[in-house]
């Protein structure tokens, strides 16, 4: 099952069960929500190919007390609607749950117009956004259900790439493999956990996983890291560098930030091809990490 499938099922169940829940679509996945729309025409709203309006409508729905979920490809949901997200949600102190597909290079064959490596960085310019990047479809329903109860601003970034198994959908860092005391720590976000585990096989490092990069578990990070930290995230490289620097500001430390490069790759193929091109497959990650780890404490 894909993350998108679990999103459709979990959100449909939320709409059925919770009269406060509303879903706003901009054509993408509208066919998948047709049964829910037939049952709840007032709370399943397809605005057509109008992503700015989708976010504006969400602001209005939230101001009347509903809990809007929005969904589209990340470049349209976030990049295109950035000012509506900033003003129609944030500035109004209104909340919503934004659920994207197609972040980074998942839409590999569709080209750069359908890709958004910068979505998390864009939300980082704004106040109060929680960002969840699940690494497995099994983590998705719990994230969506937890978001239904609040009025805060939540971004759930669904991807094509998945880890072999789900982990608990918690906000904290989860240690997956423990190295010796003081060993370098690799923080892997969402679906890059498995490549990070493969890349560090046989090395004395601690590997920790998070599916909630915002707010990042900085207390856990500060406890875990001695001096050397590698962050592996499936969106723009360095997106979390400011958070890591703040968490470790009280000590001398070294940090390597790996992720999607700014360099536009004008080729198509598959997400795996793009992962390789950005050095985010196991081999690429290992190649980037080895010189850094070789000089670690």
């Amino acid at each position: 099952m894909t993350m998108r499938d679990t999103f459709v099922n979990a959100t449909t169940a939320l709409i059925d069960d919770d009269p406060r829940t509303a879903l706003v679509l901009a054509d993408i996945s509208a066919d998948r929500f047709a049964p829910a729309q037939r049952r709840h025409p007032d709370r399943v709203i397809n605005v057509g190919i109008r992503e700015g309006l989708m976010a504006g409508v969400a602001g209005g729905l939230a101001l009347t007390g509903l809990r809007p979920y929005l969904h589209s490809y990340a470049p349209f949901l976030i990049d295109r609607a950035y000012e509506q997200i900033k003003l129609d949600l944030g500035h109004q102190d209104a909340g919503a749950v934004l659920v994207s597909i197609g972040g980074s290079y998942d839409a590999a064959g569709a080209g750069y117009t359908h890709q958004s490596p910068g979505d998390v960085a864009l939300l980082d310019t704004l106040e109060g956004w929680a960002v969840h990047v699940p690494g497995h479809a099994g983590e998705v329903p719990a994230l969506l259900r937890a978001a239904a109860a609040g009025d805060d601003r939540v971004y759930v970034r669904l991807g094509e790439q998945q880890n072999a198994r789900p982990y608990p959908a918690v906000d904290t860092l989860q240690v997956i493999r423990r190295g010796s005391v003081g060993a370098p720590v690799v923080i892997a976000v969402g679906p890059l956990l498995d490549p990070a585990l493969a890349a560090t096989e046989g090395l004395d490092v601690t590997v920790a996983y998070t599916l909630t990069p915002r707010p990042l578990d900085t207390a856990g990070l500060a406890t875990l890291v001695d001096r050397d930290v590698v962050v592996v995230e499936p969106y723009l490289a360095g997106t979390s560098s400011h958070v890591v620097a703040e968490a470790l500001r009280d000590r001398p430390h070294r940090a390597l930030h790996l992720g999607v490069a700014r360099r536009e790759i004008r080729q198509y193929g598959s997400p795996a091809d793009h992962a390789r091109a950005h050095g985010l497959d196991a081999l690429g990650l290992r190649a980037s990490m080895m010189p850094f780890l070789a000089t670690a404490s």
Partner: protein
Amino acid sequence: MTESATRTDALPALLDRIAGDEKHLPSAYSTLDVLWVLYDRVLRVTPATVDEPDRDRFLLSKGHGPAAYYAVLAAKGFIPPEWLGHAGEWDSPLGWHPDRIRIPGVEIGTGSLGHGLGVAVGTALGLRAQGLDARTFVLLGDAELDEGSNHEAIAFTAAIRLPLTAIVVDNQSSTYGWPGGIPARFPGWEASIVGGRDRDALEWALGQPADRPRLIVAVVEKQGS
């Protein structure tokens, strides 16, 4: 003399209290009569009901030139008249564009043009989904229609026949204008064109049943004239 008339007469004095609004002066007053008629004769909202779920909603989309808005809010008791003399100051709740978090009775914070209509669509949808008997009004400027975001909301509202009243105050401030008229940009909406200073005509137009997309173009003197 009715209380209403007394407070109408108070508007010039209240406007005079708003210091330092030179930047937005012409547009500030273009909306004055529309706002007065809304709050005096149309909207079912009072200072006591600003948090009631079934209050009527008024969204000032354009945000610019809020002096008239602030004066009407003060005349109707939503904000203290003493606030008016300090707009834009560090510790004033009143900015050059209104902030819903700071000002009682203000439904949305605006200023960046082209946002109010989309939020109004969501507001009307949210009220309808909850079965609330409340109407949604949104005020735009004719120059604000330059922003493409409005046209997403205009087309969608017509397509789903959403009950929503948009008021466009037309002081001919759009750089390239709207050849063929503003109603032509609202296909599928029921349009009225009324004098923006004619309070009885405004009251009639604003009081039409809130059962469909309605456009009211309130024509006032050309900006700067």
